[in-house]
């Protein structure tokens, strides 16, 4: 129905643009990771030294490990908050369902920075939480460990990603045919077996999608550590950012970025596979 000219006119500009402004930059990053810096300037000597440094220097491995742990904690916490919320909304919220759904959506589009900043004012040693604790005489001196710790990073990122995790889970629970749940109950299964053998497996695609999203975006976050993480909450993306700024070692920074990219893409590939296996036809 559409002519050859139509197809060409439609496809050519985005193809060219994406090639020039996405494919080329990503390729450049890949190329940089095999280059080197000599006397403060970038030289195009192809080598593997950056990757060698990355895998042999325990500093990088340590921070990468901590980053994975933080990202995993964020994912787990968001699931623990988001899944029951989705389950509640889908099965038990009755007529208020639509309103409650909107209430979860609203913070999703509210500024990342605004929400991060809010946590900073709450957790600080002169912050709202410490003021609250002292006002009610729970403590006499401000509690210092709240801000500038991995805990604060996990808290802030969990707050940001819980609605993200909620959405796909809610969508997949909503798509479960209610007849299946009823059948399970009619056949004598209690609430727990019905949940674990019917609802949970059928909501797996949504759960996986949400978990991937939370994990991947936490993995590459450098703003939360800068805002509330302090030096003990430094994550891998902070190292990349320093390498591109003050330390001026773009090739090494690019090599770490490529690592983040590879972890991200393999995870996406894996969950896409898993989702297909679990999806209900």
């Amino acid at each position: 129905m559409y002519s050859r000219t139509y197809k060409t006119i439609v496809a050519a500009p985005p193809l060219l643009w994406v090639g020039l402004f996405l494919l080329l930059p990503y390729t450049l990053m890949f190329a940089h990771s095999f280059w080197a810096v000599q006397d403060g300037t970038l030289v195009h000597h192809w080598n593997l030294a950056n990757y060698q440094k990355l895998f042999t220097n325990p500093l990088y491995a340590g921070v990468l490990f901590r980053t994975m742990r933080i990202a995993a904690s964020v994912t787990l916490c968001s699931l623990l908050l988001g899944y029951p919320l989705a389950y509640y909304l889908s099965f038990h919220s009755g007529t208020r369902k639509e309103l409650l759904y909107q209430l979860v959506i609203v913070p999703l589009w509210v500024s990342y920075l605004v929400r991060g900043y809010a946590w900073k004012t709450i957790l600080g040693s002169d912050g709202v939480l410490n003021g609250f604790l002292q006002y009610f005489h729970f403590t006499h001196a401000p509690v210092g460990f709240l801000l500038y710790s991995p805990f604060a990073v996990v808290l802030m990122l969990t707050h940001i990603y819980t609605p993200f995790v909620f959405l796909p889970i809610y969508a997949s629970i909503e798509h479960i045919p209610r007849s299946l749940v009823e059948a399970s109950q009619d056949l004598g299964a209690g609430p727990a077996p019905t949940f674990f053998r019917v609802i949970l497996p059928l909501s797996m695609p949504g759960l996986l999608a949400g978990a991937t999203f939370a994990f991947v975006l936490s993995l590459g976050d450098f703003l939360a550590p800068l805002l509330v993480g302090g030096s003990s909450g430094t994550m891998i993306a902070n190292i990349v950012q320093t390498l591109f700024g003050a330390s001026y070692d773009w090739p090494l920074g690019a090599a770490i970025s490529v690592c983040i990219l590879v972890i991200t893409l393999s995870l996406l590939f894996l969950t896409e596979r898993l989702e297909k296996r679990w999806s209900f036809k």
Partner: protein
Amino acid sequence: MRGTSPTRRAPLLAIYATLVFAFIYLPIVVLILYSFNRDGVGGFPPRQLTLDWYRQLFADGPLWDSVLNSLLVACGAVALSLALGLLAALALDRASFPGKALFRRLVLLPLILPGIITGLSLLMFVVFAGMQLSLLTVFLGHGTALISVATTEIFAGLQKLDRAQEEASLDLGATPWRTFWRITLPNLRLSLIAAGLLIFTLSMDEIAVTFFLLGRDNTLPLEIWARLRRGITPEINAISTLIFAVSVALIIVWYRIRMRSVGSGAQQLLERP
């Protein structure tokens, strides 16, 4: 009978859900509350309500310059990503070409990847091309990264489009060009507006990509970011409260349009990150 069948009372679950809501909203409430607190951020309880911080905010020249910069970038990004996203969605819907699967993945990549990866790649490209960092590079970054959002939204709209109308138009002798302007585009109107609002909001709030592409002129989030490093004042609470209010207003408009156009495209977008 969706959502009603196993409805027994679940008081524990209801309490848990309430707590999750409290967790989600508490920081935002605290933020807004302390923007009216005379004694600054922190301390409990907030006493002596005042509008001083808002007065200070409205007299703050550099901050409003950054708002203007952000508006410029956001409007540019909306125009660029809508134009390219529309074409990309049409191409994905109607054309077949070698590398189509790769193209689809590539377009959506900035949506899935952490912002730092896209930001740094573009920085390397900008340096490689010998360009100066400025608001122009920020605009290029936003516009390119947000093609992903535009494509997803418009593609969802295209899926709902009635092809028969276009066929009728072509059969009755209208040129493809005329058919596009008179049939295709008007039918996609709501998707385009919804996508535009979403892109605008996302661009106004973008930090990770902007961080690496910024020249001398700050955008609003980066201006706030720079001030945060110097210490916190309720003036930041005040501007954050205003941003929150504007975001909520835009979301409500966006949602209304969304409900009328394609239903659950936003969920589709998030279901498959």
